[in-house]
């Protein structure tokens, strides 16, 4: 089972435009978060956003992989996360549409465990002591 957050989305835009949106500093700053990204493997950059308790609003990143119109990945360290990895994979579908496979992986400790076994759901806090944990433990 994948130990990551994953999304696959189809965009009605050609792969060139998608690639530009992922690798242009201004574009990334607009749709994701303000950053000083450069499309160079090894380049260190930061995303800056609003802070909240437990998170100073800064995400430290480093470009890990870059494959024109196909793949972008960078490390992601901020808040509770250290050295997790964000990956965007693009596939040109018919020259007009593009499939994006997004993945945020490389979680450590508790988060990693939880992503592999989602025993929890909404309402869990109320039920934990009585039903759900018991059931999980019995099925283990």
């Amino acid at each position, binding site marked *: 089972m994948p130990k990551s*957050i994953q999304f696959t989305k189809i965009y009605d*835009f050609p792969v060139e435009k998608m690639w530009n949106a992922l690798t242009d500093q201004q574009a990334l700053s607009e*749709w994701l978060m303000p950053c000083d990204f450069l499309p160079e493997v090894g380049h260190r950059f930061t995303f800056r956003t609003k802070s909240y308790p437990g998170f100073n609003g800064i995400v430290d990143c480093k470009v890990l992989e870059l494959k024109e119109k196909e793949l972008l990945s960078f490390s992601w360290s901020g808040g509770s996360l250290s050295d997790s990895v964000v990956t965007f994979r693009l596939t040109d579908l018919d020259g007009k549409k593009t499939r994006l496979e997004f993945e945020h992986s490389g979680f*450590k400790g508790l988060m990693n*465990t*939880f992503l592999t076994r989602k025993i*929890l759901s909404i309402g869990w806090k109320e039920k*934990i*002591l009585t039903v759900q944990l018991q059931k999980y433990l019995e099925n283990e």
Partner: protein
Amino acid sequence: MSDVFKAIADPTRREILLMLAQRSENICMISKKFQMSRTAVSKHIKILVDNNLVTLQSGKEDGRERYCHARLEALAEVNDYIIRLEGFWNSKLDGLNDYLAKGEDH
């Protein structure tokens, strides 16, 4: 590295945690109930404490005897964090579509 499920992979630790989830106990009571040595119980408790599933607190009448409390909200906190992170990316990736659509108009 903290790993809750490794901590409760052991059936005895699961039973201890379930017992503590209903009522806090001290090492002595746990060892009686499970017919185990205090040393063995202490080892299990240490793993639960290291994984943030149990906290130790001094008892009311007797400060020497520490009570073990289940801290299951540790699990819920992590779960909430993941749900928020998933929500963050999902809305950003939808926002990417809006960003691209905006470019089309120009």
